[in-house]
């Protein structure tokens, strides 16, 4: 008996017939780079503008004050008694009293109010932050279940356009692109922020 795979591939070949060998040239004259350099003030301003437009908060800081800023942001957002989770690779001095992820199950993750991570890269034009599971970001579930996500983005990680963003990422890793907090437009096309993912996204932008 022919396998489903063989049969489908055979159907494709029969369907294409002669047209199979016709080459198609892909025009790539769209923008593959921004007008501004990664990390430049213009790109950082654009990122902030887009993030705020999608109801994320942005907190600028110099790298010398980073740990203090992270703690300040958390203090303002955390509900009373709320616990904080961090991935194993996050610098320990950022949130000294946080719990480090040990592969907790989902209900345990649900017991944390907030998570603090770094990121892999960000695109200003769309207000998008990419996470790739590196040690300072952790596995995907930890940035999903807690209701508050504080994400540290460094100036050098911010590019202007989507093509530049993808060029910085490894497609064989598990990636998450985050553009603002979770949202829905399913009721009368009206955007409502905060459904199943974190309802609060706070970005700490390190400007130097």
């Amino acid at each position, binding site marked *: 008996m*022919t*396998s*489903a*795979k063989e*049969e*489908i*591939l*055979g*159907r*494709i*070949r*029969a*369907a*294409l017939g002669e047209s*199979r*060998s016709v*080459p*198609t*040239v892909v*025009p*790539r*004259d*769209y*923008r593959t780079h921004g007008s501004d350099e990664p990390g430049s003030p213009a790109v950082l301003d654009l990122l902030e503008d*887009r993030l705020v437009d999608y109801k994320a908060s942005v907190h600028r800081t110099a790298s010398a004050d980073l740990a203090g800023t992270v703690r300040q942001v958390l203090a303002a957002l955390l509900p009373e008694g709320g616990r904080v989770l961090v991935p194993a690779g996050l610098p320990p001095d950022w949130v000294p009293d946080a719990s480090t992820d040990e592969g907790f199950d*989902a209900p345990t993750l649900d017991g944390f109010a907030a998570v603090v991570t770094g990121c892999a890269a960000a695109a200003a*034009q*769309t*207000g*998008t932050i990419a996470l790739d599971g590196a040690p300072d970001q952790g*596995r*995907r*579930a930890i940035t*999903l*279940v807690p209701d508050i996500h504080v994400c540290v983005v460094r100036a050098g990680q911010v590019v202007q356009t*989507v*093509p530049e963003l*993808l*060029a910085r990422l490894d*497609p*064989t*890793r*598990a*990636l*998450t*692109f985050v*553009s603002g907090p*979770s949202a*829905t*437009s*399913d*009721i*009368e*096309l*009206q955007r*409502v922020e*905060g*459904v*199943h*993912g974190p309802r609060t996204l706070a970005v700490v932008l390190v400007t130097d």
Partner: protein
Amino acid sequence: MSGIFLGMPVHAPRGVGALRGAEPFPVAARTALANTQLRRNLGHATATIRAKRAAVVSELDDWEELRRAGEAIKTATMTRLDEHLEQLERAFTARGGTVHWARDANEANEVVTRLVQATGEREVVKVKSMATQEIGLNEALEAVGIAAYETDLAELIVQLGHDTPSHILVPAIHRNRSEIREIFLREMAGVDPMLTDEPRMLAMAARAHLRRKFLSAKVGISGANFAVAQTGTLVVLESEGNGRMCLTLPQTLITVMGIEKLVPTWTDLEVFLQLLPRSSTGERMNPYTSTWAGRHEGDGPRDVHLVLVDNGRTATLADEIGRQVLNCIKCSACMNVCPVYERTGGHAYGSVYPGPIGAVLSPQLTGIEDNASLPYASTLCGACFDACPVRIDIPSVLVHLRAKHVEQQREDHRLPSAEALSMAAASWVMSTSTRFSAAEKASRIGRLLGARRGRITMLPPPFSGWSASRDVPLPPRESFREWWAGRGGATS
């Protein structure tokens, strides 16, 4: 290659899935048109989304270049679809995933059912997927006692309302806030009886309702917006985070995907991640996009499957004009601009694929005899082409399918099909009836003008504005109205 492949194209089978309506389009459309609440909801929703889309599209000065690149990438992918699929399978398998192939809806449902049964679970969580709706997966699972929970807010509204989707992006677009509130109050166990119809409150009710399901789910089922052949990367775009929940928390993940959803390389995705969110929700970027390539150690599901489904796609590929429809990235922009869709809504199209894309996709997947009235569900105004991020020439394909249908009937010396006859009985109400027939006459004049070259470059009004920017294919000599009138149909 064995000789069996050279036979007739194989369409999506009858009796399974959701590609065929219970009633032909004109009959269903008449019912829909009588529903003023529905028309009001649709008019409001499509106007909102059109404005949002226009605003974010105008932000990009390279939008046309992106559209042309998107069109070319998809076209190039189709001409080597077999190679790309094999490459995808190799890459996904090399990274610990398992690939399954399914000739049609029945086989796909069998594969998924078997995979779920192997886990011993009786419940699955689902993230919105056109492919699983198309094949009727929920019904197939239910038949063996497995409950499938839709987790997308709109899908949840549809599922709780014992309803069917009417839009590919916003499946509950036909419902307004107070109707949604009523459904939640009636169907959601433990919902706050003080629930208001404020969208935020309704969204929070959905969050609370699904939270426990997500945290305990062992099996997730998804579709995929794209698959990168070279790297074996699957891509899902979403807004609410329910997708991330389904893709990340369960131990087993089963992804069901049509064989046409490929792009060759990671770089190609840079085009579609710009085209799709702006065209669909009218956002610069959707809140969440997830990608995975096989299994990821210590991160997400341990058992990762991909089911590649044909179900009429190879039959569509066999038609040189019709195959461009496979380039569709399911953004729904064409339905949001369509004057016919805006009046009738999605249910009238019978299939899970409504609107202009449905009118050209459903009849090709099922074979035209099973959806014969759909290619007529259009005024050929061309708005869908202008909105389409991958430049699918829907008007040309519509005309092509009408001609193909007429040709088929003639060859078979058959009387008009049941679908076609019932169109005669329905009042044809896409626009005012005089405007509609005038437009059809005009398109017939177009045929006379262009009789020699097979393409025409100038049409009389109301098409002249449209044809100024592109060549229009020849419409069939007989317009629909004339065609059925000639067969004894009564004018409405």
